[in-house]
């Protein structure tokens, strides 16, 4: 199970330390550095693969994945409204859940590697594809298509945010440099991937646990949503993966991507575009509940789902 993986244990260490109100605190610049390294590592890896096999069918797959990023939030929105969430809050929540978490993706990469399961190396491309559409859907759901939305500033925020720039930058550098060009970068970005991820998750544990304080305020409906939504989305992601003919590892990765919820790009974008939505509601759900759920329970479960689908279909 996922629990014996050292990176998950690092997460639990941070989580527990924070719950026990330990003095442990990592410098903010270290977290920044780690997230930059992980984003570039994921981008580079995908880019190298694109250099080997960029094709039209990949473009078709990307369009299908993008469609999933639009449809899932549209389906979840009315459900949240039924559960009594205000319109802006529901829209913000589905934007977080339709988008993706690179941290969760990184843990899934490490998990599959530890299990010796290969997946299509170009999958980081889908991380990029899934990051933005749900944010646009969320904004339109919250406000309709109104003139007073500052689309120019929003576009800047969406497409020039840190994670998109580093992911696309890494993809392009990997693509242009190719496998041999990237080789000298391997020690830092690929060999050290797991140690970097472990430190990153230590900090994520501290942050995730600090979100739990506000959980009491939002109660059961939020907890139910934050655990059920990833499960439902993962089934949609796995189904799409099978339909696209991905390998077992690829299906598990796409299920993980669909199940993950953003906690960096989307909160910042929604705060500016839909300021009336309560930011701590979405962040508590995605960071406090869904992220821990996915890396401890979800990812092993999504792999089993992929293996079960491969065995039965």
């Amino acid at each position, binding site marked *: 199970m996922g629990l014996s993986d050292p990176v998950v244990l690092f997460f639990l260490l941070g989580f527990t330390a924070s719950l026990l109100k330990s003095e442990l605190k990592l410098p903010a610049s270290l977290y920044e550095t780690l997230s930059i390294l992980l984003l570039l590592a994921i981008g580079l890896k995908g880019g190298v693969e694109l250099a080997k096999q960029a094709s039209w069918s990949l473009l078709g797959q990307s369009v299908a994945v993008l469609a999933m990023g639009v449809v899932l939030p549209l389906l979840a929105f009315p459900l949240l409204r039924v559960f009594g969430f205000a319109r802006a809050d529901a829209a913000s929540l589905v934007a977080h859940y339709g988008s993706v978490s690179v941290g969760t993706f990184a843990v899934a990469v490490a998990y599959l590697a530890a299990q010796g399961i290969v997946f299509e190396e170009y999958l980081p491309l889908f991380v990029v594809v899934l990051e933005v559409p749900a944010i646009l859907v969320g904004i339109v759901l919250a406000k309709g298509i109104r003139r007073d939305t500052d689309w120019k500033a929003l576009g800047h925020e969406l497409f020039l945010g840190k994670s998109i720039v580093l992911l696309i930058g890494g993809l392009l550098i990997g693509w242009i440099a190719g496998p041999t060009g990237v080789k000298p970068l391997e020690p830092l970005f690929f060999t050290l991937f797991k140690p970097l991820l472990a430190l990153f998750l230590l900090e994520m544990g501290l942050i995730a646990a600090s979100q739990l304080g506000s959980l009491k305020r939002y109660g059961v409906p939020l907890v139910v949503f934050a655990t059920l939504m990833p499960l439902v989305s993962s089934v949609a992601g796995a189904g799409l993966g099978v339909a696209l003919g991905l390998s077992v590892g690829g299906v598990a990765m796409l299920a993980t991507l669909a199940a993950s919820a953003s906690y960096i790009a989307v909160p910042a974008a929604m*705060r500016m575009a839909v300021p009336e939505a309560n930011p701590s509601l979405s*962040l508590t759900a995605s960071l406090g509940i869904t992220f821990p759920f996915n890396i401890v329970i979800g990812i092993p479960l999504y792999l089993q789902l992929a293996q079960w689908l491969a065995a039965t279909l």
Partner: protein
Amino acid sequence: MQTHQRTLLTVICEAVLEHKLEQALEKLGAPGWTIADARGRGGRGVRSAGWDTEGNIRVEVICNRELAQNIADYLHEHYYANFAMVCYLSAVEVFRADKF
């Protein structure tokens, strides 16, 4: 050295507003400003600065009373409803009148 009366406008708000705030200050004609990271606790809970969207900033502008009031009104109108923001004026004495 002779001193001159000016007004110090201090704004403490969510870090996410930094860019918009700078645009507004520029538009309204603030002569200059200083921004620092901040953390603390207020009506909207603990702002720990432990996370990108959870940080606060503290913006200081020294200018004449009228402009300070204008900026405060603008902020009130645009951001008070949905953002964590505190804003206050205080009298200060400056040495170079032409600078502020």
